[in-house]
């Protein structure tokens, strides 16, 4: 039956329902030259020590639909991704990015991450540290209730506040926590660079815990194979 020979099995194109509100986004459909990849880093709100942060995910969904990257790096462990266990992943990934990618041509690249900073304070001054950490967590929770639009989460001011809170918390948790946080950051960066080496010349969106965003942007900006752009220009 040669009538089968003309069959196509390509995957579906994206159906963008509504791009209103994102008129500034310019999608370049052609990849760069093959040695560099266009990369954008999009900070997303992470869950706070296992507690899901409740915020409206529609703007994030709209934005990712509008960007339509070729590859989307997300903070999921490989083993969790392969087993389909996304319980540890933040809501933004679990409820928005993964379902979107299942329906479109965007390919998810798990890059590790999702490390909680709940390492426990040292015995000596646990009481004070715990109080301080709770205050900082409370501040983050309050800020996330207000600042939950992608543009706001990725603004310089918010990134600065995020970094400051994160650094303070890490200092309170101690050296082990700091080292672990940095190890996770390094793993994420290593996996992103491996992805770019494996498939150069593509449009890559890295969605990352907003607390890691500034560090990651700095690292990627120094990488020759990366053409780092704002997510609106990917």
């Amino acid at each position, binding site marked *: 039956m040669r009538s089968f020979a003309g069959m196509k099995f390509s995957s*579906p194109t994206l*159906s963008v329902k509504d791009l209103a509100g994102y008129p500034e986004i310019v999608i*370049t459909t052609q990849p760069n030259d093959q040695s560099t990849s266009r990369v954008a880093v999009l900070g997303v709100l992470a869950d706070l020590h296992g507690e899901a942060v409740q915020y409206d995910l529609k703007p994030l969904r709209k934005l990712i639909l509008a960007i339509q990257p070729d590859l989307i790096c997300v903070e999921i462990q490989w083993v969790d991704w392969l087993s389909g266990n996304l319980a540890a992943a933040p809501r933004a990934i679990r409820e928005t990015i993964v379902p979107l990618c299942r329906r479109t041509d965007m390919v998810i690249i798990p890059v590790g991450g999702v490390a909680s900073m709940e390492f426990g304070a040292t015995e000596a001054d646990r009481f004070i540290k715990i109080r301080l950490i709770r205050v900082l967590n409370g501040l983050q929770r309050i800020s996330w209730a207000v600042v939950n639009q992608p543009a706001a989460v990725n603004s310089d001011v918010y990134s600065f506040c995020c970094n400051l809170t994160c650094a303070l918390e890490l200092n309170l948790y101690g050296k082990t926590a700091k080292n672990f946080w940095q190890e996770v950051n390094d793993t994420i960066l290593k996996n992103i660079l491996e992805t770019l080496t494996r498939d150069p010349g593509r449009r890559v969106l890295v969605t990352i815990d907003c607390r890691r965003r500034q560090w990651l942007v700095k690292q990627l900006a120094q990488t020759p194979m990366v053409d780092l752009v704002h997510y609106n220009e990917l």
Partner: protein
Amino acid sequence: MNKPLKRKIRLFIICSQLLAREGLILLTQQDEDIKVIGDAADDEAGVTGIDTLQPDVVIVADGWGGEDCSCADTVKKIKAYHPHIPILVVSPHVENARVQMALAAGANGYLPMGIDIDELVRVLYTVNRGELTLHPSLLPAILQQLEAETGGKSTATNPDDLTQRESDILSALSRGLTDREIAQQLSISVRTVQSHLAHIYEKLHVHSRTEAALIAVQHKHE
């Protein structure tokens, strides 16, 4: 350049069993971009409804009428009047003969009942673009049949000429994976997979993924 905006996919469902039909309506409408504009329990009502409503895609849910009940006739009737409306068959029967009859009648896709809703929605998008889609689980059996019909003869180049990455992709393709599934498995983009596929076709002197997959299957048996 922004990609063009698409309107909702307007879907029509033909299924003789009320519960299954209602289930399909509820499940497909979970997707924001799909709207069920009509449904029917039999061919006649279906063709009339399609005449009136002019849907973008029709789902013909086949096989609840027993082993003898085939969707091929329904597909033929619809295609006779509306050759450009894509038709997707969803059926619990996955025998080659049934699949081939449905495709020969003009169906644009064939899915077993065991698929999940994400898969169904994805295929609806593909079929809406006018592309032919078979569920990956149906492909190996059809390829083997094709191989039997062609007597295993092929004038194409040996797959050994392919690079390691191209061989990986050909192997995945012969297992019936879609471009997206291959991309996800190899952690590369869909466009990269498509670019590799173009090279594979060129090297093997074939024009479609089915022909390429056939060569892969033949080579595996050698």
